[in-house]
């Protein structure tokens, strides 16, 4: 099986492609608060509707959903946490043909950008 990550067409991406246990591989804060839970997160678990945000010394749970807007040619995630509600635009999704490995790029309205890897 090829280990090559291929770009997924974001206009046709199935919602379940975005679910899974994601590891924060890379992050650019821009103007985001560096002390926020999201800025500290090391893992992001998206299963069913449940969201779990893991950091080295804390854990937050909430819910998530995939949303679409006709003005955007790609989906965005709506994340509900106890302290805040966030939205993150999916800027890129790459995965192997068998889906065993994937890479997800998110852009938050705070300016925070994240690259998530799975596994």
């Amino acid at each position, binding site marked *: 099986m090829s280990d090559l990550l291929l770009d997924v067409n974001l206009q046709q991406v199935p919602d379940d492609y975005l679910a899974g246990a994601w590891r924060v591989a890379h992050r650019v804060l821009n103007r985001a608060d560096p002390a926020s839970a999201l800025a500290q997160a090391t893992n992001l678990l998206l299963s069913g509707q449940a969201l779990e945000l893991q950091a080295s010394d804390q854990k937050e749970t909430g819910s998530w959903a995939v949303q679409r*807007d006709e*003005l*955007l*040619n*790609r989906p*965005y995630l709506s994340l509900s946490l106890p302290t805040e509600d966030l*939205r993150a*635009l999916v*800027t*890129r999704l790459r995965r192997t043909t068998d889906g065993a490995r994937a890479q997800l790029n998110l*852009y938050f*309205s705070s300016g925070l950008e994240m690259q998530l890897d799975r596994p």
Partner: protein
Amino acid sequence: MDASIANPHSSSLIENEFQFLADFIPQLVWITDPAGDHLYFNQRWTDYTGYTLADSVGPDMWNNLLHPDDRARARQIWGHSLATGEDYEIEYRFKAKAGGYRWFLGQAKPRYDADGSIVTWFGTCTDIQDQKLAREMLAEREAEFTTLADNVAQLSWMARADGHIYWYNKRWYDFTGTTPEEMASKGWEGIQHPNHLAEIVYFVKDAWDKGEPWELTLPLKRHDGEYRWFLTRAVPIRDEQGQLVRWLGTNTDVTKMRELQEQLQNSYADLEAKVTFRNLELEHEVQKLRKQLNASVA
């Protein structure tokens, strides 16, 4: 009345005619006995070398007139002809009386008697200095062209007027991993991507027929099976009458450029999406504030 004129076959007339002919033709003419000792030189020989028949005593006289680099080879080939009776042919340099050497084509044939024994060797030396220099200059230019063609960054090729490619540079063979024999027998179709082949063949056939310069970006298969994108450019070469005689073509690897172009396009698309996303977020915020405002007013 002169007897030789009255009888055109008289031996003295033939001898005179031979002498005239031998001195008239532009070659140096010589005759030897079966052992290779000279019996005759024409006037041109004597004029060019400064050697007369009397000076030619000794087996190696003529050999000493040769350029030192040609002597051993000439001795070996002439010796072989004398020993076997096979026709003699060689290119060598003869020293001129005036100084310097000139290239000659030496040729000789044996003349046999009724018993089949060699009576004499009849030989000529034709001045080929100009042709030789032209040939050397051509070979030098060809070597320079090959060096240039093999060292340019592009894959290069030349095709006949009908589009049949008859020459590729070394970079082509290095990139594709093919040999000249394989390219001659299988053609270039095997190097193309199957998904693009039909389109390329159609385009190129049309381009050959039009006879105008053309460009096409296409993928070519590398020796390891990976495809890379190349910008192909072909220019028609015409003779003085304007007749298309050949095509000169190059393939420039533009894979990196295409990747950068794609990255740039993706970046623009991402930026556009981010701006739209931010605008939507602002819209959500505005709607939220309106609701709060309406609620407080109510």
